[in-house]
């Protein structure tokens, strides 16, 4: 589509003449309405400023409010007033020009040369250089203290924020009033303005000091009629009334020849009102307030910030064809699908062109109408007329349907939609899903798609958008579909993959001890959607049995080779040294057959680069990987259900002698700590380099009571927990939890810390009144000798809560900080792109990187950042030998 292109935008400053010319009337009185509530002519609600009431006819243009564009008025100021937004530039002009003759403080010869240079730069369109050139001239001119043209001595100009100028003369600081400032700016020749970077045609410097103030149309500042019948005016209207009142008073004082003190006071007040009218958040002056104490909104406040015109209205648009509701999980959906409630499907529509091939189908949809799914809500005739199917004879419309008509039909299975969860931090926060219309009222998604959205089901809501054009639908399907994002560009690896129950299920299914009867095999393969022959059973007599590994192999490509230790091998007790090891912790796939090794997080888990899932996506395509996840993963869940998988209190209990042993270990450590404290009191403790004695002591205590103690106890309890224990299965396979969690549940929580130190806050010299002042012992400073299985003492529970709070506050602070950083980064980088030659450039062609990321590698297609993984290539080519 080619439309009119905007080539250039020019910003300028309105001159007093322009303001008067565009004004329909001078606004002269602070009175707004008369006693009958009729707007007073010459007041801020003057009817000539435009029609705002429903049937009002504009006296200026003759239109009603729908067509009246609104008309400006103006206020003639009794004295000039500085425009706050231009103070920076006024300051620059005052500093660079002569206070007497108004010329740029640069010698005539140089000035001529600079003008020529500037012309040259402009001809070459070297905009960045021009900017620097102006900066150079400004710097040079403001350093001069004697005018090279008239010889007048120059004083330093001082700006007192927000808008008061002083001259540092010999006798002291002398204030320059806006009239004097304006007089100086008027004297600056056009050529000098150009040299300083100004535009004398569209922005003469003196226009930055206002003599006439535009009054915006009433439509810009509408008044609201409250229920009580009282009219409430817009903040800008209030401000304008203030300005007019003070302006009139000032004029009277001048005309009556009042003393200059009074005039100056009134003048300052006018300046204040006009400043706050433009911007009510200027630092250095009091904020103008309502009678209620609420700050008034100036013009700047309408534009600035998140809710302002730019971020709130122009960049943040509301859209049609979108929907939002709570999400819930559905493992029976494909990862590419989203479950859409019927209720939603009846509101969201897709425009479908009627053709000879779909006309009968479209007729059926039209007859079903808006209330019966699948139906249609509107029909658009070739002439563009839109007919709602709500209150018409739908049979007749269906009959009249012909090729060329467009039917806005309900969303139905197979449609493509965009699905999104805020905060949209990366591109996989918005992905395309295929619709499945389902009963109930939540959006449903496969659990495997939670990680990219960072979604869970504790009440999360998500948004859904329906693309309306063929191009948009094609792009969504080809670029944004979930399966295209199994691999993430964040690191070279899959972000979508097994998690939680899928992993424990996979482990149980592929364990050596798992043997499956014929019925089980049929059940499992049925869930996975397998259509084909059953493989030869692994055990024939007395009854045929299959292994879980056999079932997995059915779904692996026939030329797939893979070898990697399983996650459970990270525990020394379960580590396999070679292929003949009984722990089954090396996963080996040869020619598509899972020969040995259990599947766990290391092979099918998410965020596991160089895993089985990763190689499947990379080497056989997203499509196969998706099928693997839709089918095989379902089998994992089904097996976990058949097997039964749960954990309980009893799974964490330790035998009596183990408990005794742990108690002993703790006592030993405590003794160690008391010895340290004694040593400290005796003055025998040596401070570590760079630390005070107290810090040294604390460091040593924390070291003794947390890491080393937890490790020791952890080692002590591992023999009691085997892979038959569901808690251990989860921790070892990487499904959920880790060995430290286990120790904390079964044995002890150990030392609690806040900002990495033992807990000291609370009462004077002690944490709680239960302890003696200055007690340095473990219990008094947040040591917890119990695990969750035993339960905590009240004091321990208090310390645990205190330390837990730190994590919560940290998260809260981190999210807000990273959110803002994200915004700044996006704003700075959004226009960069990788060109076809591999360079990264701005839209204007400036180079940012000579080769994307220095190596030109797309991280999504890399292996953990590497462009070529030599080991894998070898593994793939020569296969893997036992």
């Amino acid at each position, binding site marked *: 589509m080619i439309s009119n292109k905007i080539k250039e935008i020019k910003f300028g400053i309105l001159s007093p003449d322009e303001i008067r010319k565009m004004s329909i009337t001078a606004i002269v009185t602070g009175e707004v309405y008369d006693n009958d509530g009729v707007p007073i002519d010459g007041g801020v609600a003057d009817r000539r400023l435009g029609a705002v009431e429903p049937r009002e006819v504009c006296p200026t243009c003759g239109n009603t409010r729908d067509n009246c564009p609104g008309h400006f008025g103006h206020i003639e100021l009794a004295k000039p007033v500085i425009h706050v937004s231009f103070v920076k530039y006024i300051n620059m002009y005052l500093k660079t020009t002569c206070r007497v003759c108004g010329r740029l403080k640069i010698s005539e010869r140089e000035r001529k040369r600079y003008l020529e240079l500037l012309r040259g730069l402009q001809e070459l369109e070297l905009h960045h250089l021009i900017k620097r050139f102006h900066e150079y001239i400004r710097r040079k001119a403001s350093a001069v203290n004697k005018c090279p043209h008239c010889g007048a001595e120059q004083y330093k100009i001082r700006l007192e924020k927000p808008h008061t100028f002083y001259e540092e003369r010999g006798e002291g600081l002398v204030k320059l009033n806006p009239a004097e400032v304006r007089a100086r700016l008027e004297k600056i020749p056009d050529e000098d303005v150009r040299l300083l970077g100004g535009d004398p045609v569209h922005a003469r410097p003196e226009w930055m000091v206002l003599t006439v103030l535009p009054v915006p149309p009433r439509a810009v500042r509408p008044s609201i009629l409250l229920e009580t019948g009282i009219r409430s005016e817009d903040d800008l209207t209030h401000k304008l009334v203030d300005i007019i009142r003070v302006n009139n008073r000032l004029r009277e004082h001048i005309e009556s020849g009042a003393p200059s003190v009074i005039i100056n006071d009134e003048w300052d007040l006018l300046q204040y009102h006009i400043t706050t009218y433009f911007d009510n958040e200027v630092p250095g002056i009091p904020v103008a307030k309502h009678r209620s104490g609420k700050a008034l909104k100036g013009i700047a406040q309408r534009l600035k910030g998140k809710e302002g015109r730019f971020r709130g209205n122009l960049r943040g648009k509301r859209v049609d064809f979108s929907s939002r509701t709570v999400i819930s999980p559905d493992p029976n959906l494909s990862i590419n699908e989203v479950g859409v409630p019927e209720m939603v499907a009846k509101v969201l529509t897709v425009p479908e062109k009627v053709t000879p091939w779909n006309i009968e189908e479209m007729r059926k949809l039209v007859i079903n109408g808006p209330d019966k799914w699948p139906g249609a809500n509107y029909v658009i005739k070739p002439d563009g007329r839109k007919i709602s199917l709500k209150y018409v004879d739908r049979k007749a419309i269906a009959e009249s349907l012909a090729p060329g008509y467009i039917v806005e039909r309900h969303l139905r299975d197979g449609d493509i939609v965009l699905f999104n969860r805020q905060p949209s931090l990366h591109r996989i926060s918005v992905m395309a899903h295929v619709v499945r219309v389902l009963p109930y009222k939540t959006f449903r998604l496969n659990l495997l798609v939670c990680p990219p959205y960072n979604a869970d089901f504790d009440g999360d809501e998500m948004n859904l958008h329906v693309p309306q054009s063929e191009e948009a639908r094609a792009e969504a399907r080809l670029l944004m579909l979930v399966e295209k994002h199994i691999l993430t560009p964040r690191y070279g690896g899959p972000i979508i993959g097994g998690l939680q129950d899928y992993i424990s299920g996979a482990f149980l299914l592929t364990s050596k001890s798992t043997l499956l009867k014929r019925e089980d095999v049929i059940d499992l393969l049925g869930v996975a959607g397998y259509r084909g022959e059953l493989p030869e059973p692994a055990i024939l007599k007395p009854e045929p049995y299959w292994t879980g590994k056999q079932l997995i192999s059915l779904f692996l490509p026939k030329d797939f080779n893979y070898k990697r230790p399983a996650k459970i091998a990270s525990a020394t007790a379960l580590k396999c040294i070679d292929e003949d090891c009984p722990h089954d912790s090396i996963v080996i796939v040869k020619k598509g057959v899972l020969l040995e090794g259990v599947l766990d997080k290391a092979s099918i888990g998410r965020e596991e680069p160089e895993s089985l899932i990763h190689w499947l996506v990379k080497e056989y395509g997203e499509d196969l990987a998706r099928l693997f996840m839709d089918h095989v993963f379902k089998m994992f869940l089904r097996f976990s259900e058949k097997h039964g998988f749960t954990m309980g209190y009893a799974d964490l209990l330790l035998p009596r002698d183990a408990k005794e042993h742990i108690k002993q270990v703790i006592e030993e450590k405590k003794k160690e700590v008391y010895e340290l404290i004694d040593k400290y009191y005796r003055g025998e403790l040596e401070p570590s380099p760079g630390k005070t004695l107290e810090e040294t002591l604390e460091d040593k205590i924390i070291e003794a009571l947390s890491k080393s103690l937890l490790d020791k106890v952890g080692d002590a309890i591992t023999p009691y927990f085997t892979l038959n224990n569901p808690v251990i299965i989860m921790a070892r396979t990487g499904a959920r939890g880790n060995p430290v969690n286990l120790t904390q549940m079964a044995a002890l929580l150990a030392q609690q810390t806040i900002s990495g130190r033992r807990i000291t806050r609370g009462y004077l010299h002690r944490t709680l009144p239960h302890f003696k002042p200055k007690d340095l012992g473990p219990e008094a400073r947040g040591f917890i000798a119990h695990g969750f299985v035993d339960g905590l003492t009240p004091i321990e529970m208090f310390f645990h809560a205190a330390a837990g709070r730190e994590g919560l506050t940290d998260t809260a602070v981190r999210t807000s900080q990273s959110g803002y950083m994200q915004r700044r980064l996006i704003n700075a980088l959004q226009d960069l792109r990788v060109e076809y030659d591999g360079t990264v450039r701005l839209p204007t062609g400036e180079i940012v990187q000579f080769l994307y*990321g220095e*190596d030109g590698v797309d991280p999504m297609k890399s292996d953990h950042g590497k462009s070529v993984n030599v080991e894998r290539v070898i593994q793939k080519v020569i296969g893997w030998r036992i």
Partner: protein
Amino acid sequence: MPSKKTKINILEHELVPKHEVLSPEEASKVLKRLNIKPTQLPWISIDDPIVRLIKAKPGDIIKITRKSPTAGESIAYRYVVVDTLHPKKKGGK
């Protein structure tokens, strides 16, 4: 504290990559390859210590050869400019 007389040659420093001034022919070849005007290259100030050391002049193009953990070696170019915003010595334009 090192004495004031201690002077190191930053050209020899481990962390300073190789900088070379391109001849006009090489420079125009680079510009042609990238299809850009010199000002569209990233800029480097004439006051940058390395630029002074290799005696580059405003308008020159510098080739920088860096060690890169991912690419082994990566090449970048800089366009030498006079820094009017943070001038070190007087004169200039």
